[in-house]
Each structure stands twice: as C-alpha cells, then as structure tokens.
C-alpha cells in the first residue's frame, strides 16, 4: 500500500516567544526546527505500515525552501520520496494549504493519507479534513492506534478513559496524535541515504486567505520571581487558600 504523509516545519520555541518586527511571525534566528510532533509520529506510523504491508511512503510539506530539512528527516526515518510545495515562508491559511496539498495528493492517489491532528504552531485543526473532502475520502481524526486489516483501516481515538473505534475502507485520510508510537531514532546510514534521495519541488498557487493573519501577540506571562506564601508550617492556611483559588481543592 502507498502511504502519503503531510508534515509541517515548526520552530522549537522553548520558553519565551519573541516576535519579528512585523509581528507576523516569531523570531527564529536562534531556534532549531523540527517536524510538528504529531506528524513526526505520522511519518513513523506510515513507515511501520509499509514495513508490514509493503508499498511506499511519500512525504509532502508546504513551506519555505528550508523545509527540505524536515523532508530529509522523514526520509531518514524511512520515507521513500519527498515533495516540497515551496512558499516564501509566510503564513498560509488552512484553506489554501489544504487546496495545494489536495492537488498533489489527488495526482498521487495514495491508499492512505496521514496528517497530524493539528500543527504545533498554527493549530488550525482542519487541513486534514479539508483535504479528505477535496479527495472525496472518509476521514478519521486524532488516532492513537491504527491498523490495516483486509483493505480496511481500523483506528482508535482516545475519548476520556475509553477508546472509540472506527473502521473505514481504504483509500482514506487520517490524522494522528503523538503517543500513537515512539518515533525511531534514525540511524546515520539512513540519514546519509536520505541526503541523496531526490526532493521534488513544486510551486503551489496561493489563494486569498479567508482566515487572514493580522498580527501575533505574546500573552502576558507570569512574573519571574515566586510569590512567597510563607515560611514553615505556618504557611499552610495560605497554601490551602491558594488551592481553593486555583480550583484544585
């Protein structure tokens, strides 16, 4: 079976966020980048499926030229080919993103398309579903377990202390969550091979954004020094009062 995974390049932000001068992005000069966590698991899941059932894994991203780095990460985990939908790095709204991806995926006609449940940065919660509609395929989201049995996909979604089970025929679109697997630590020979695999580049067409980013704002954080509630056992009433204020007692 052929599996296609869509990934997104996101910065590793650590603690404090600093915005760029135009307030439309975050300052990433000193930041590392990664594949958004849910999608990292998506790539691993795709590679495992193909290891078990045969076929190929294609990884696709929409992003700046540097997103090639994340495609190579996915190739090192075991993806076979990579497609970069190259942008100028500015923010694409979910509809435009989904449309550009759907064009590529429709041409490729994979048996299964895997997305992350939501991206770490924008958190739009909709690109996978929009693509599923564009392709006319069923979509199951937020999977924490996934198996392919007799041309059918069985997926489990966490719901409180239970799991909801879905069974859909292939081809299908799914979105997965971190925890579905533990992504492998890629080997160096695999990384070296990944460096030599070709990355196809396309230039997608951008539509007018109907969800238009105006500017970003850093929310007010908590103070740097702790508020001392007291010293020794005599602080207990102040602590309990705090518990009540926070709603934990």
């Amino acid at each position, binding site marked *: 079976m052929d599996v296609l995974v869509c990934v997104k390049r996101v910065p590793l*932000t650590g603690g404090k*966020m600093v915005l760029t001068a135009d307030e439309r992005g*975050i300052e990433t000069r000193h930041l590392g980048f990664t594949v958004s966590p849910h999608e990292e698991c998506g790539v691993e899941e795709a590679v495992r499926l193909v290891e078990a059932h045969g076929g190929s894994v294609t990884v696709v991203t929409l992003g700046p030229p540097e997103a090639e780095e994340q495609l190579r990460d996915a190739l090192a985990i075991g993806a076979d080919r990579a497609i970069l939908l190259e942008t100028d790095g500015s923010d694409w709204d*979910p*509809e435009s993103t989904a449309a550009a991806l759907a064009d590529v995926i429709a041409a490729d006609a994979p048996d299964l398309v895997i997305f992350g449940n*939501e991206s*770490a*940065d*924008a*958190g*739009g*919660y*909709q690109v996978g*579903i*929009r693509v599923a*509609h564009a392709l*006319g395929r*069923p*979509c*199951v*989201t*937020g999977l924490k377990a996934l198996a392919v049995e007799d041309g059918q996909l069985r997926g489990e*979604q966490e*719901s409180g*202390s*239970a*799991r*909801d*089970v*879905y069974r859909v025929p292939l081809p*299908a679109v799914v979105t997965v969550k971190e925890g579905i697997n533990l992504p492998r630590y890629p080997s160096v020979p695999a990384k070296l091979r990944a460096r030599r695999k070709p990355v196809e580049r396309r230039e997608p067409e951008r539509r*007018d*954004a*109907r*969800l238009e*980013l*105006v*500017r970003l*704002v*850093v*929310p007010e954080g908590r103070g740097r*020094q*702790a508020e*001392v*509630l*007291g010293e*020794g*056992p*005599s*602080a*207990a009433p*102040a*602590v*309990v009062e*705090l*518990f009540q204020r*926070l*709603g*934990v*007692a």
Partner: protein
Amino acid sequence: MTVLVFVEHAAGEPDELSLQALAFALDFAGGNGVDAVLIGGADAASDLPVGTAHVAELDGGYAPQAWARAIAQLEPSVLVAAGSERGNEVLAHAAVMTGGALAANCVAAAPGDPAEVTRMRWGGSLLEEARIHGPVKLMTVAPHAVAPATAAGDPAVAPFTPELRDEDLVARVVERVDTSTGGLSLAEAPVVVSGGRGVGSPEGFAPLEELAGMLGGVVGCSRAVTMAGWRSHTDQVGQTGTKISPELYIPCGISGATQHMAGCKGAKKLLAINSDPEAPIMATADYAVIGDVAEIVPAITAELRRVSG
C-alpha cells in the same frame, strides 16, 4: 445575522465547554439572536438561553461528517462550537460543507465583515489576531477562555431529520473500548506533587502521597530520587522522565536543575516548597513556601482536612 452554536451534551446536560462557547456566541451576537444545534439530546436543550434549539434526529454513535451535515443544513452564517476534540472536528467538516472559513480556539471575537478574532497558537503561548472573510464564519472557542453561560432560557425546541449522504456515515464510531486502569497517569494528572532529595528517604514520600490524594493528583519525583532507588523511573518528572502539564505542580525539596525543569514547563502553576530561598526553582515558580518539606506538607494536609471538615 443569526449565530448558531453547536452544543455537545452528555447525560441530558450540555457540556461545560459548550456553555462557554455559548457565552462566547452570545457576546459575539450582541443583541442579535443565537440559536443552538444539538445532535439528539432534546433534554439538554430545554433551558439553553437561545431562541431556537435545533435537535437533529440521528441514530447511531458519533459520526463527525454526518453531524456536520446536519448542522450545515441549517445554513448558518456564523457557527460557533467548543474547542473540544469533537467541536473542532465537526466544525472543520461543516466549514467545507458551508464553504466557510474556520478559526479554531478563539479567545475573543468581534462581529463585522470581516469578523475579527483573537485565537490561540502554540497551545496558548502565542495569540493571533486574525480576520475571517466571507459569508460564512466558523469559530471554535478555546477551553476556559470565557466563563460558561449560566442564564437559563426557554428555547423553541425544533427537532429535524437531516438528509444525509451515503459517504457521511462511512467514518463513524463502531465500537467503544474501555481502557481505564483505575489510576491517574502522571502525564494527565491535574495536580502533581513531586519530591526531590529534600524529602530525605522513600518513607518521606508518604505525606506527599497523602497530599496528592487529597488534591486528586499523583506523586512524581526528581531524577536524584530515582537514582537513589527511592521510586521507580515511571514516577520521574524531567527531561529523561515524564513531561507533565498539570494545572498545579508542587515540587517539594526539588532545587530545580534544568533536567527537572524541562519536564514540568507545561505546568500551569507552580508552587515550590523548598528550604533554600535561593534555589533555582524559585525563579520559575509562581508561589513558594520556604522551609522543611517534612514539616510543611503534613501541615498543609492537616489544614485541608480542617477546612473540608
């Protein structure tokens, strides 16, 4: 303009997060009307503070696309739902069906064309001010961004039978598997009480267990504790242990080495109990109590018991 709110419900009651979404919608609508839509559950609709409560008659379990189809048939121009798993999922489907634009996890919004919203990015570490263009505008509301709607209303309950397409029921819940183990997991616990070297011994964790129990939380520990063999590695909070994101984190006798702090940066509030006022953890904690853990923690549990009677 009528604002339609998708209300999730369980056991005849609307969900807390949906009531928050409703409050958000009422505020957004200003004086204009707000209607609700529910999938089944006429009981839950009976006193919602809305004009009309549409109740879709649908059989079977959760089927996101079918639910969205039902809602889309009401042809809303503004559709609001909770930023829950299902709220986000159903509205994404509905966005496609209505040809609308969806802004997920909003914390504030102002009507207009375009509508202006403030929504969460990076799980709330960053806010985005955005505009929603087009005739149909969809929003989900970030959990706990607004207080729930409390006023009771007397809506006209309007049951309807949605016209579904074949493909709408392909993806639906066919089975439900209970996975509860009885206990709370460290990663999910709303309160985590962790002990470090300052606790002194494996036995020193007993008061921490008691406190965690009273707060509905679990006990964690620092790397030094695991290394000392006091507790199992599964209890370890930190870079090489579990990363937690509780509402309240209470590190006791933990100095706050980077190793540890990497595991608890997701905590909403941090109350440090430590004998050293200069300990590094004080720079990250929101609240602190200075002194001996072995004295302070039992005093807190005693006070909790006294207060709760």
